C-alpha cells in the first residue's frame, strides 16, 4: 500500500492556494506602489524585497498545515482501516472509543453501535444453535 499519497494531494492544493495568495498580494502591492507615486525606477527593487518576505511567510506554513492535515485526517483514516481489518479477522470484542468530536468521532460511534448490534445478533444465533443440540 502506498503511504501518504492523499496527504501529498492535499499538500498540492494548499501549495497552489498559497502561491495564488502570493501572486495576488504582490499584485496589490505593485498597484499600491504605483498609485501612491513611488518613483517607477524604485518599484522593482521594493517588489523584490517585499516579495521575498511575503513569499517566505506564505510558504513556511505549508509544512505546518501539512502536519495538521496529517493529524486531523490521515491518521484517523488509517486507524479506522486498521479497526475494520481487525473486525474482518473476527475480533468483535474490542470496543471502539471515539476520540474526537468531529466526523471521525461520529464514524467511530456508528462503528461501535454496529459492532455491538452484530455481536448481539451473533450471540443470539449461537444461543439458538446451542439450544438445539
Amino acid at each position, binding site marked *: 500500500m502506498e503511504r501518504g*499519497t*492523499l496527504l501529498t*494531494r*492535499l499538500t498540492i*492544493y494548499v501549495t*497552489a*492556494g*498559497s502561491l*495564488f*495568495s502570493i501572486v*495576488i498580494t504582490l499584485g*496589490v*502591492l505593485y498597484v*499600491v*506602489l504605483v*498609485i*501612491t*507615486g*513611488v*518613483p517607477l525606477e524604485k518599484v522593482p527593487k*521594493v517588489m523584490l524585497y*517585499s516579495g521575498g*518576505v*511575503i513569499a517566505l*511567510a*506564505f510558504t513556511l506554513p505549508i509544512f*505546518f*498545515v501539512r502536519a*495538521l*492535515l496529517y493529524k*486531523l*485526517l*490521515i491518521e484517523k*483514516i*488509517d486507524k*479506522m*482501516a486498521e479497526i*475494520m*481489518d481487525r*473486525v*474482518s479477522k*473476527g475480533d468483535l470484542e474490542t470496543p471502539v472509543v471515539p476520540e*474526537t*468530536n*468531529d*466526523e*471521525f*468521532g*461520529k*464514524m467511530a*460511534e*456508528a*462503528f461501535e*453501535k*454496529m459492532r455491538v*448490534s*452484530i455481536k448481539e*445478533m451473533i450471540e443470539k*444465533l449461537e444461543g439458538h*444453535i446451542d439450544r438445539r443440540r
Partner: protein
Amino acid sequence: MIGGGKKYRSVLYKILDIVFIGTLLAAVLVFFVFFFAMVNNGVPDETAWKYALGSTLFLVLAWFVGPVLIIQLLIERTVLKPIKGMTKRLERMSEGDLDTPLEIEGDYEIKTLGEAFERMRLSLRALIRRLKKYES
C-alpha cells in the same frame, strides 16, 4: 453521545481555526511590509497608513474567498464526504442490513478504507449466514 458530551464539530472548522490565526498573522505582516515599502520611498505616513490598511483588508478577503474556501471544499469532497457516507452505511449495518455494498469513490487512503470496509462487511455477512444455516 459516547464522546463524553462533547459537541459535534466538523474537522473543517478545526482546520479553519488554525487558518484564521495564520491569516491574522499574515495580515499583520503584509500590513507592515506594505507600510514600510511606501514610507521608505517617500510616501507620507498618513497616505501610506491608509493604503496599507485598505489593501490588507482587501487581501484578507481575497485569501478567504479564494484559496481558503476552495481548499476547504476540496477537503470536504475528497475526505469528508466518503467518511460521512461510510458512517451512514455503518448505521444501516447496525440495523441488520449487511447486503448493500458500499458505493464510495475515493483515492489512496480513502480507497484503502473503503476496501477494508467491504472486507469487513463481507466477512461479517459470511459469519452471520453460516450461523443462520446451522440454526435452520
